[in-house]
């Protein structure tokens, strides 16, 4: 299959390195596996025979590549059916989903499979995109979009096919969990913990997307829609962030064997807010870790813990890609 990387930022580059390292595995699954192109916001490189993955994984900007065509757009390659799968890793935009939404819509409508860690299009148009994928008989996989490397969607798809998920709760944002963990262990205030996170590159200069719970709310929407059959929108989520959490509040919680964590919940509620979590509860993980706790009718309780962002996310993207290869290689959706 022919792979096109749309977006060559942090994850695009990390994915290129992983593809280079895992090439023999990929070729074993699909003898025709090749990365035919990579695009950023200003241009792309493309080769029908496949790019040299060694070269691609060695560059930090696509424009360093000798074949870089500046002023060109990924949509041209998608429109001309010059690929079978796109990995859509452009920036998350929860206002209008762009440019990811256009890329994904276009790809699916042309029977091109999509693997994406980009939350924006999923938050805004989950049902539309899933039915577009179904109609065109192609895969839309998004494991990396929620809780990074934690294989929550794959687990549900493969291992909980007969279970009904009754409640889902989780720590879905590593930045806020880092801040709250520092407040818990070091007994420092929110502002200092935030500053420290910013210095370490864990929090953005403008931290509102994380600390006000918007990122967690996006993930709750995707989880509710993908795993619990909802048609939730971001405005349906009752949301409050962690800005007002004081050192005193954390100390009072700690004295009673609780930690304060930013928790997203889907049950009859759709809620993101700081909660008191007993320190011996499986969700009570610290640092930048994420955790998801499922309660199902058959399995009872299941908790997954792992890294929600960073280069570990590549694990999820690569697994999605391999899933597409196993499902589809040699079986072009356009021919079936």
């Amino acid at each position, binding site marked *: 299959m022919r792979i096109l990387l749309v977006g060559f930022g942090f994850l695009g580059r990390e994915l290129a390195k992983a593809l280079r390292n895992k090439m023999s595995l990929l070729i074993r699954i699909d003898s025709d596996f090749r990365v035919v192109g990579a695009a950023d916001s200003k241009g792309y490189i493309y080769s029908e025979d496949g790019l040299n993955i060694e070269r691609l994984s060695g560059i930090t900007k696509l424009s360093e590549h000798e074949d870089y065509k500046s002023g060109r757009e990924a949509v041209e390659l998608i429109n001309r059916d010059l690929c079978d799968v796109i990995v859509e890793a452009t920036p998350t935009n929860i206002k209008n989903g762009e440019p990811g939404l256009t890329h994904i819509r276009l790809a699916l409508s042309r029977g091109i499979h999509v693997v994406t860690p980009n939350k924006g299009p999923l938050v805004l148009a989950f049902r539309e995109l899933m039915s577009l994928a179904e109609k065109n008989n192609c895969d839309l996989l998004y494991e990396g979009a929620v809780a990074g490397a934690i294989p929550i969607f794959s687990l549900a798809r493969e291992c909980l096919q007969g279970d009904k998920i009754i409640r889902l709760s989780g720590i879905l944002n590593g930045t806020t969990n880092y801040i709250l963990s520092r407040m818990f262990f070091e007994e420092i205030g929110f502002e200092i913990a935030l500053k420290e996170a910013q210095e370490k590159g864990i929090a953005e200069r403008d931290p509102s997307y994380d600390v006000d719970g918007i990122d967690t709310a996006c993930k709750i929407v995707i989880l509710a829609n993908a795993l619990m059959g909802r048609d939730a929108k971001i405005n349906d989520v009752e949301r*409050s962030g962690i800005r*007002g*959490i004081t050192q005193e*509040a954390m100390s*009072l*919680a700690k004295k009673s064997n609780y930690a304060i964590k930013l928790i997203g919940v889907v049950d009859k509620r759709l809620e993101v807010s700081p*909660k008191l979590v*007993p320190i011996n509860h499986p969700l009570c993980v610290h640092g930048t870790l994420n955790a998801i706790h499922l309660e199902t009718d058959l399995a009872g309780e299941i908790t997954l813990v792992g890294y929600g962002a960073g280069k570990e996310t590549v694990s999820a993207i690569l697994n999605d890609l391999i899933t597409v290869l196993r499902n589809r290689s040699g079986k072009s959706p356009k021919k079936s």
Partner: protein
Amino acid sequence: MKFNMTLALADKPGQLLRALEPIAKNGGNIVSIIHERDRPVEGYVPVSLVVDFPSHQSFRNTINDFRSLGIMIIRSEELVEKVRLTFILIGGVDLKKIVESKVEGAKIIGLEASTPRLEEVTVKLDVEIPAENVDELMEELKGLAREQNVILISPIYP
């Protein structure tokens, strides 16, 4: 719904069976039974039962049947499942309003405050409440928090 009952049975054979009959007849399910035969008081043996009845009516019918059989009832009451919840409130909390909030059966069993500055007081509140009133309590506290511009941190699974 579960009920706690203590009966006084005459200390002679067959009395326990006689007492259990109305319970079965009214659809009650015996959860536990303590028959203190070695502790007769003036010829009577206390029997403590926890019974799960399908309705209040079936409980009342059983009590009436006991009465007509001449079985003495020492005590009978509904067993209410109670839960303990911890909350933390940050900001200028008006504790009076919280104490006066009128959720049925809610009891404040613990209160701890840390006061760096009065307008920023942080309060930990432990509440005991019948399980069935938890949602109501949550709504009440959320409302109060909104009204007073206070941050409410509630238990993860109330």
